[in-house]
Structure formats: C-alpha cells, structure tokens
C-alpha cells in the first residue's frame, strides 16, 4: 500500500471544519485554496465563512438557539441561495423527502419525524450487530440538538436513513428509500476526493446499501472507495485516529477519546466489510441455473414440508 501523497492529507485538513466551501481541482504541488460553493449546489443553512475561522466551540455544536428560516437567512452569504426564494427548495409538506438531490444541505431532522425512525432502524439492524461505528445515544442526541450540522454531517444522515429504510415496514419507506438513496449518492459524489470521517462512513453504508439492492459491482466500488479514504486519513494507525489537530471541531458532538474511538470503529467497520463481504460480492449465477429456478422455487413453495427421510 503506497502512502497517500501529502497533498491529499492537506486537502482534508484544509477543509476542516466543513462549511459551504469547495477546493479547487487539485494539482500536485499546488497549494489548495478555498472558494465558495457555486450557487447551483444548494442553499445556505450554513455560513460561508473564511477557512481561517475553523474553531468551533462546543456551545455552537450544541446550539439550541432559534433556527427559523428567517434566522438562517440573516446568516447566509451573498453567494448562497435563499430557502424562501429558490423554487427548487419548495418542500412538499406531504412528502418531506421529495426534495431534489441537490438540496442535501437541508437537515433531514428538521423536515420529517421519520428521520429518527429511519435512524433507529439503522442502529437496530446495522450498527448494533456488525458495523458498530457510532454510539447510538450520543449520536441521536446530536441529531436532535445540533443546529449547525455541516454538509458532511448531512451526507451521513441521508445515507444512514437510506439504509435504515430497507428495514422499515412502512409502505412509504420504498419511495422514501429511493429518494434518500438519490440524495445520498449525489452528496457522496459531490464530496469526491475530500476525505473526511463522514465520507468514509457514507461510502461504507453506500456499499452495503448498493449490495442490498443487487448491484454487487457498485458495492465493491463503494467499498474500495471507503478503503482508499480511510487510508488517506491514516485511520489504520493510532496516530491517524488520535490526531489532535481537530480537537476544536467535534464530529457528532464527540470529542477527545470518544471521537478517536469513532474513527477507530469506522476503520474496523471498513475492514470487516472488505474482508467478510469480498467473496459474496463475487457470487454470480450460472445461466443454466436461471432457467430452472422458477420451477424449483415453485416446487419448494408448494411442498414446504417434504419428507426427506424415506
């Protein structure tokens, strides 16, 4: 495994914490600079602020202040879109998740109570058993209380909800899942090349979700992308997960050793996914079996209690 070139790490550091910013296309050896998002990307419910103001104290992370649309509008930059004037962003109250993928900057917790239900399903079916990346209590508390979630945070939320949908018995979960998948996919693509903890987690869950939907090649691709990002962040070493430089910014309201453990578990989740799901990803049906399957399944369903012992 070749060590990632330094400028990748610099890109990651330069983006912390996440605001509405985008790096210029990288050129080896060229210093990275920050420019505001193009207006077509999405609205601003986050500030567009100079990168130099990277410190974010805990009070801001757990801000309980009023977050009405009017309040957010007073903080947006001139380059960002208005929630009230952009027609793309008109939220359908009857279908809160029916937003365009480009609107992934909207905090899902603020648009539907189903957000928490789908997240609960994610924790029950995925996080609790095998891919234990996140601490449920602290994470869900952060979802409810944080009013300044970054774009990367929202990318993760939409992805977790998309996979949580797969385990929901609600009839609307199918349409919700399709839309959430679009948003998750779009947000991940929009984050290409910008390695963050959230990107690794989103890619890992996209791998699971894509495999769940029957696209084994896509799942393999996402898993590989998660691997590349996790190495780019050096999460395969204690130095990488305990990097003290970002103590001022706390993903998911976690800080210090808890954040390091989250990064550690994220790496190990990618490890388990890569190792345990590599062979099933190669499974492929022989066409000569396909012709026989309908008959066999029908036979099995009609004879559920075959007396095998003669």
């Amino acid at each position: 495994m070749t060590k990632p070139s330094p400028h990748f790490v610099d890109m990651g550091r330069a983006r912390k914490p996440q605001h509405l910013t985008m790096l210029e296309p990288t050129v080896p050896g060229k210093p990275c600079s920050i420019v505001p998002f193009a207006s077509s990307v999405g609205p601003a419910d986050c500030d567009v602020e100079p990168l130099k103001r990277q410190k974010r104290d805990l009070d801001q992370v757990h801000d309980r202040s009023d977050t009405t649309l009017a309040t957010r509008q007073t903080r947006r930059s001139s380059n960002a879109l208005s929630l009230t004037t952009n027609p793309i962003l008109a939220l359908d109250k009857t279908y809160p998740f029916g937003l365009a993928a480009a609107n992934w900057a909207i905090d899902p917790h603020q648009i539907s109570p189903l957000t928490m239900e789908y997240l609960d399903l994610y924790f029950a079916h995925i996080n609790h058993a095998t891919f234990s990346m996140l601490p449920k209590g602290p994470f869900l508390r952060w979802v409810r209380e944080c009013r300044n979630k970054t774009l990367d945070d929202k990318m993760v939320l939409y992805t977790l909800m998309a996979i949580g949908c797969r385990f929901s018995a609600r009839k609307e979960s199918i349409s919700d899942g399709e839309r959430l998948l679009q948003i998750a996919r779009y947000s991940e693509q929009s984050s290409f090349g910008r390695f963050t903890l959230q990107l690794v987690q989103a890619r890992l869950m996209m791998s699971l979700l894509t495999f769940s939907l029957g696209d084994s090649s896509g799942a393999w691709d996402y898993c590989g992308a998660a691997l590349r990002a996790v190495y780019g962040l050096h999460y395969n070493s204690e130095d990488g997960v305990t990097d003290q430089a970002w103590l001022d910014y706390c993903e998911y309201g976690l800080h210090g050793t808890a954040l390091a453990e989250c990064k550690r578990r994220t790496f190990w989740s990618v490890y388990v996914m890569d190792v345990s799901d590599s062979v099933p990803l190669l499974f492929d049906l022989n066409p000569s079996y396909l012709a026989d399957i309908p008959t066999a399944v029908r036979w099995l369903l009609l004879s559920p209690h075959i007396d095998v012992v003669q």
Partner: protein
Amino acid sequence: MLSNEDCFLRLPCREDLYESQEIPETPYFAMAGQGLNWQEHATLGNMAHLIAIASAWSDVLQSIYRTKHRAIHAEHDAYEVFYGERQRQLQAFTNRLPTHWFPSNTPKIERALQSGYLGSFICLHALYHTTQMKLNRHALQDDLKEKSLGRNLRVAQFHARELLKITQTMSELQRAQSVSELAGIFSTPFLGYSILSAVDTLTSIGSLVDLKSDLLLVQSSLGLVEELGKYWAGAQEQFEVMAVRFREMTTALQTASVEDIVFCTTEPMDDPFGKELDLLFSPPVEDRLRGLGLGMEARRGKGVLSIKTPGLGIRDYGS
C-alpha cells in the same frame, strides 16, 4: 483487500463503554493473536472478536487467491505448514471466546437473543465456520499429503453441519418471534453466503444416510435465507439457487436404487476459485470417497449415485 500487516490500530472497546464515552485503552490489533490474554482485557467487546475472526478469514482468502495464481508449485509441505498455522490461529480464537459465545447451542442462541447481541453472535459463527469450510475445501490436491484429503473433507463437512444447526435454531426462533426482535441478524449479507457454502459442502459427496439427515438441515435453513432475501438482493438469488439444489437432491433420493449407498454431485453451486482448487469436486471420486471412509463402496464400482447438476460456473476470483 486490506492487509492485516497494515493495521496499526487498537481494537475497539466494549460497546457500553463507547456509549458512555468512557473509552479505555485497549490492546493493539497486532497483539490479538500473539499470546494476548483476552480474559484480562474486559475492555474488549463483541466487535473485537469479530475483527479477530475476520482477520483469520482474510488470511485464508488471500492464501487461496495466491495459490490459484501462482506460476510454480509450492515448496514441499508448505501447505501443511500453512494449514497447521491457520488451525492453531482458529483454535486460539475459539479458546478465548467467552463460554456463552462458543460452542454454540440452543440455550446460548436464546441468551444472545434475550441479551441483544444475536446479530454479532450469528455473524461471528458464520465467519468462523465459513473460514473453516474454505480453509479445508480450497487447495490443490497435489499440495496435500495423501491422508490430508480425507481430513480436509471431513472437517469441511463438520463445520458445514455445525453452521446449519445454528441456522436451524435461528429458523425456529424466527417462526416464534417477530422480526423486530430478531433485529441485527440481517445486518450482513455474509450469512446467506455462509449458508450456501454449507449446503454446497454437504450436498457434494458422501453417504446417502448422511444426506437424508443433512437435507433436513438444508430445508430448515432455506426459510432463513428467504427472509434474508427481503433485505439483500444477493440472498434472494442464493435462496433460488439453493432451492434448485434442494430439489435436485430430493428428487435424486426419491429415485435412488436400493443398491445406492453413496452419492456425488457433478458441479458446485459455490465456485469462486475454480474447480481445480475445490477438493469437494475436483479429485477423483474414488479418492474422495476413500478419504471419507467410504472407499469400499467405490471399489465395488456400484452403489454410487451420481447426481448431475446444472453446474454453476462462477467467474474466478480476481479475474
């Protein structure tokens, strides 16, 4: 695939400590298989055990992959050295598991369900038994000592049966419980693949007496895989393929002659490494039957029920 040698990280701590954000210092991953006394480290939780068995699975997969693609024959006894090392690693793994985790039985599975760690429990056992099945199944016959073929076939089939006994218990629990109470057992698609591998192993070659009892295990596991198929598209395909195999075997049993004592099928369902590396299907039938202690039947030249299957030509691993 991630290399174990590139993991310079501590193992994750116990889940309750993570929830309370009281993170202790845990051992490094590299120490996990090197004499680390796991009983002394109460800070380690379920995920640490999953990582340990996943690392063993990774070692086995990588070895099979390299065997498939190497251009020259391995050194004399190289396979036996590798096999011995892997078995010691797996033995050490099971030895350090808490008693309520291993070996599996119905009360332990019910306890896992009641205590909320059934998903991790099933994933760990699926990984362990599949690692054993693959370790014993995929090798070049030329690399093995003469008596090793029988050892590998018997051990592979033993672990296939152990896995299907677990899934039989799971099926019974599934019928008795609601889906929400079984949350977590569907968290990974690997379980469906494990079951398919076990079915393939047990329906490859053996005695008809064993086949009849094994098919009862297969039948009870099909429902679990069908349930998995609601969440994982791949599991739906696996269920359908196993349905074909189950029908083949059951039909063959019903039409078998009274003189038939042993059986062998012609093609595997699960074939990611190519038939040449498949000890269950590649060596001559007489060699395989002799290895399973059924050689007398082979020498008589009759009593062998040959079951022709459609065949599953999986694209080769890494190609």
